[in-house]
């Protein structure tokens, strides 16, 4: 039974997806919280789309983008990188599905930072990047971490987008959620229940941790 391999693979890819989402999601959350620019509502809507769209539809969009004939897939294959049906596809699917949770949570944290502190930092000679790194980010940090934990938890539970772009190849792209479905479908109930217990425990721990962090930032 490859329960432990599946668990380990899921944890590693979910961590990778969170690492991919953070450098994109955190500055985006700050921009949405602070900057006024044309197309802001459009960006906001696009970022949140994976939350409300059927995950398989998001997966199909990713497949069209990263497939051999897709614009990104073709560009990547020129430099020798294949994405679809590899662990990289799993990471991309997880990152896209986790990004909205990270952005929405972190944005709330940035909005709570006293704007006057950022303005005072600017008058003391700090440019926008320094204000972000030394004032906004440290003060919003607990909420940003809570958002990252939520994105990680969402990535761990990802199914629809993953199966579209990465499939269910044992030992290569099979994640916890996909494995539960495969085991249940083929009558391997003990393995399915074991994975169910593991994924419930991980989701519980992640949500509990995120709530504690977000609660701490409000205290």
């Amino acid at each position, binding site marked *: 039974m490859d329960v432990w391999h599946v668990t380990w693979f899921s944890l590693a890819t979910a961590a990778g997806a969170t690492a991919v989402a953070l450098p994109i999601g955190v500055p985006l959350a700050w921009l949405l919280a602070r900057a006024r620019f044309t197309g802001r509502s459009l960006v906001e809507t696009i970022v949140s789309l994976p939350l409300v769209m059927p995950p398989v539809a998001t997966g199909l969009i990713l497949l069209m983008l990263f497939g051999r004939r897709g614009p990104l897939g073709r560009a990547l294959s020129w430099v020798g990188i294949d994405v679809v049906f590899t662990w990289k596809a799993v990471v991309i699917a997880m990152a896209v599905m986790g990004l909205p949770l990270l952005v929405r949570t972190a944005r709330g944290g940035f909005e709570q930072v006293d704007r006057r502190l950022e*303005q005072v930092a600017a008058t003391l000679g700090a440019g926008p990047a320094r204000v972000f790194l030394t004032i906004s980010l440290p003060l919003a940090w607990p909420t940003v971490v809570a958002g990252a934990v939520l994105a990680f938890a969402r990535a761990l539970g990802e199914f629809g987008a993953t199966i579209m772009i990465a499939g269910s190849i044992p030992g290569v792209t099979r994640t916890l959620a996909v494995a539960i479905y495969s085991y249940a479908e083929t009558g391997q109930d003990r393995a399915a229940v074991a994975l169910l217990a593991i994924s419930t425990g991980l989701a519980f721990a992640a949500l509990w941790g995120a709530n504690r962090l977000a609660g701490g930032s409000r205290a």
Partner: protein
Amino acid sequence: MVLAFQLTQGEFTLDIDERIEAKVTAIFGPSGSGKTTILDAIAGLRVPSRGTIAIGDRLLFDSSASRNLPPQHRRIGYVPQDVGLFPHMNVRRNLLYGRHPGSSPPLDRVVRMLEIEGLVDRRVPQLSGGERQRVALARALMCGPAVLLLDEPLAAVDLPLRRRILPYLQRVRDEMALPIVYVSHDRDEVRMLADHVLLLDRGRVRQSGSPAAVLP
């Protein structure tokens, strides 16, 4: 200092046209008259719709030349009403945040002048109201500013504390060679600190002159 600009915010319009030579200028007026808006415009935190802002020979804002220096390049020491100390840094890191090699005064000189030697390793939440005011003032001085902007620095403290902090402001005025723009709605404070007063009401300067002439 040239403050000749118009700034509109919703229904409110601030319209000012003043050339000030004084060392300490007090902006005096009721709440909502636009006092803080003037400081924000000098600091570059709000952008006038048109006009000119200059300190000495440095042009900070000029709508006709499309010049609008960002706040980080204006060399402004700004102490907002709520002092705005960074709560996640200790006092020393607050003081050094805006230090500018070449133009900043030595840290120990500023720390001595405001008598905050014993506070530099404290965390901000551990400071009393009066200590916060002095640390914020020191931090503003540490960036080597071309002008010091103080937004009702004594409004949030009670009378005994006010009496204790006022001498520090007078010391800054007397020891540092830099212009100060000081917002207040306390006549006594203005008389003790300022040598020029702008009497502001509903976004317009109603009177401009010495404290004795404007606030008899």
